[in-house]
């Protein structure tokens, strides 16, 4: 192919930095996402010191921070709030989404649908670099006077309106990130609709592609309202408007000199209009990855593929009309709160269907416990806990004592940490051979898995107990409240588990880089899988396939009776 020769002529910076190849961009997104995940995790590990040992100086590390953040090694409340706000922002917008959608989506969607690249390669490059700018802005905001945003990742005004200059940086960073996601989602939708290989009808798409497709629609239609909200908050902060400021505010004893007339709840509506679908942006690609890995490692088709597809589409649709369950305590009327409770209960049903189908897919299989499969299997109960604990929060009556407590933190972290992030780890172990041509170490992988599983539960399970006891989230010093004191030993336990969880990532980091050199070399299809990406060379060249793929069957034809092998690739014309 002359194209490939052509690509070899490109200078280094066009080939690896400002590349338009979806695989290079996918790797860029993936590496950036992983680094941000690590960074966001480090912020949390710092917070955990203050929570476990409030007011005590942080040993060794404490002296490295300037007076702006820590005095004599003791964390200031300002800094604690900054860490909290940025942990959330970084994990969601700079870590998980770029890794799940930007990284896995970019790399594997074109491969799984048999396309040579994304539909708009230059746009793809642009979205990565806009994301990069957003990341740089967010990191830089730590260094402006008085530090970065400190009003939580939700940035509720009026607090965020009157916050220090870091909040403005946060808003600008968010505008970059939102723009990047919008450009990316347009690209995904067009790619999936237009560039599927011949024979690859919608109901022959791997579930991962379906998940990315629905996710892209969520990004496309839910993100703009947050962009609008960000613009309004920027106007409030920079141009002195009062979109979110009602009349008659008195801050620190002095009347605020603004026109007033705004509504703080307007922000919450626009924010949660995005942020609830955003939860599904985090979870749907994870479900997609798990489905791929479960099918491959049970050696049998997914149970109820079609009902899973319908469920995921329905899930995406419903996610747009449940958002106000984050606002049950804002004084809304009983009719609207009933409406949002009903939609919230309805949305749980497709999640149950998907989870049940994945669990039933195991039945009758021949399960290989490879590292990716372990992570994917662990996803099921962990996501289950996350989903179930959403139930008390979705009903207004039980939400009253639990709202904004550690119960909420436990709930959504079960969904995104041992849920989504485990699925992302599974994906890394599963597709690493495709990207690099080498396998990751199974021994290190299993060490990574078991320790992560133990410690991550040690981190989040006690939070439910704390939440029931009524301990509020975002408290710099929980010992101030009598009702939070009895559970303080749990805080110490959580912190120790969190730091141990940090240590448990070392085998992964070693494995990730070490396997580039020492990993076992593999051919194109080391897992004996059926989907299209495995019929491209490992790593795939520019243009992806050395033949034009033609698809003959559904994505998960494993253990078909009468076949010589227990897998029947989608693009294999005759029996094998």
């Amino acid at each position, binding site marked *: 192919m002359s*194209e490939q020769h*052509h*690509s070899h002529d490109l200078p280094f910076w066009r080939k690896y930095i400002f590349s*338009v*190849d979806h695989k290079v961009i996918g790797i860029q997104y993936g590496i950036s996402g992983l680094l941000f995940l690590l960074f966001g995790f480090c912020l949390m590990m710092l917070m955990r010191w203050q929570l476990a040992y409030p007011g005590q100086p942080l040993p060794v590390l404490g002296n490295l921070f300037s007076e702006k953040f820590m005095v004599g090694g003791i964390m200031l409340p300002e800094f604690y709030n900054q860490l909290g706000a940025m942990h959330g922002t970084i994990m969601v917008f700079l870590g998980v989404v770029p890794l799940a959608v930007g990284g896995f989506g970019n790399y594997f969607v074109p491969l799984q649908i048999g*396309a*040579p*690249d994304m*539909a*708009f*390669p230059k*746009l793809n490059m642009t979205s990565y670099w806009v994301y990069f700018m957003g990341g740089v802005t967010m990191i830089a905001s730590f260094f402006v006077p008085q530090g970065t945003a400190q009003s939580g990742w939700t940035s509720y005004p009026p607090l965020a309106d009157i916050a220090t200059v870091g909040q403005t940086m946060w808003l600008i960073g968010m505008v970059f990130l939102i723009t990047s996601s*919008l450009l990316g*989602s*347009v*690209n995904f*939708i*067009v790619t999936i*609709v*237009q*560039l599927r290989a011949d024979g690859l009808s919608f109901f022959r798409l791997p579930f991962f592609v379906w998940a990315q497709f629905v996710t892209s629609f969520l990004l*496309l*239609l*839910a*993100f*703009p*309202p947050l*962009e*609008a*909200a960000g*613009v*309004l908050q920027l*106007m409030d902060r920079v*141009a*002195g*408007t*009062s*979109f979110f400021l009602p009349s008659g505010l008195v801050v620190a004893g002095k009347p605020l000199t*603004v*026109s007033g*007339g*705004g*509504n703080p709840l*307007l922000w919450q*509506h*626009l924010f949660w*209009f995005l942020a609830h679908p955003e939860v599904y942006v985090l979870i749907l690609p994870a479900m997609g990855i798990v489905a791929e890995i479960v099918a491959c490692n049970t050696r049998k088709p997914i149970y109820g593929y079609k009902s899973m597809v319908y469920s995921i589409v329905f899930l995406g649709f419903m996610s747009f009309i449940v958002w106000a369950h984050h606002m049950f305590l804002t004084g809304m009327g009983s009719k609207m709160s009933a409406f949002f409770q009903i939609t919230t209960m309805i949305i749980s049903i497709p999640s149950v269907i998907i989870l049940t189908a994945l669990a039933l897919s195991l039945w009758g299989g021949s399960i290989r416990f490879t590292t990716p499969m372990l992570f994917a299997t662990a996803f099921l109960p962990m996501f289950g806990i996350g989903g179930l604990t959403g139930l008390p929060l979705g009903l207004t009556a039980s939400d009253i004592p639990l709202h904004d407590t550690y119960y909420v933190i436990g709930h959504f972290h079960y969904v995104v940490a041992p849920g989504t992030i485990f699925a992302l780890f599974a994906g890394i172990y599963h597709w690493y051979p495709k990207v690099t041509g080498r396998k990751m170490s199974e021994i290190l992988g299993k060490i990574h898995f078991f320790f992560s599983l133990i410690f991550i539960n040690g981190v989040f399970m006690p939070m439910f107990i704390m939440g029931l006891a009524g301990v509020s989230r975002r408290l710099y010093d929980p010992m101030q409240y009598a009702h939070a004191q009895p559970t303080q030993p749990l805080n110490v336990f959580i912190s120790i588990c969190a730091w141990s969880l940090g240590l448990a990532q070392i085998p992964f980091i070693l494995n990730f880089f070490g396997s580039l050199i020492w990993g076992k070399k593999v051919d194109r299809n080391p897992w004996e899988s059926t989907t299209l990406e495995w019929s491209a060379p490992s790593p795939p060249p*520019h*243009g992806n396939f050395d033949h034009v793929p033609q698809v003959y069957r559904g994505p998960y034809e494993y253990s078909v009776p009468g076949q010589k092998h227990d897998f029947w690739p989608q693009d294999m014309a005759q029996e094998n």
Partner: protein
Amino acid sequence: MSDNLIRYISKPHPVTGVTNAKLGIWCFLASEVMLFGALFSAYILLRTGASSWPRGSEILNVPLATLNTIILITSSVTMVMAWASLAMKEFSKYKRYMGATILLALAFLVVKSFEYGHKFEHHHFPATDTFYAIYFTLTGLHGLHVLGGVVVNTYFLFPGSRMWEHEPEQFMGRIECAGLYWHFVDLVWIFLFPVLYLL
């Protein structure tokens, strides 16, 4: 580049019947609908919650805005005529219509800046009250969209138009997409005008 391997760039997909670019621009416009939708939603929420709300026609300059409406509608017509000229393979006519579109867009911005200047002279700023806040935000964001359209159209008038010689079909697709965007900007104004100026 890999562009050559990607299908349906200039020819429509046999099943969906559209090119990649056309589906892409419509998706982009869908997100724009949500962007302006959120701002309109903000407008409704603020207005229904306000104890009093000024009549736009009493404090804003309706004749100037009417002129701007006509200008923008006209530019939409010239834009679609530019596309139609390409369809009839009349490249010089295309250039004329495209030039007219850009000039009209610039005229719109000039009128708009007079309007803004007038408001600033009378010390009406976004911070004055919620009405001015939403007025400046909505028209400002719309103005940025007009400016973006000017940039894109200027590109397609001068350097971008070289594509006509070797890839006429793809070039026509691009002009159609630029047109879709431009009509959308017009469409937003069609709603902004009564909502801000007349009600």
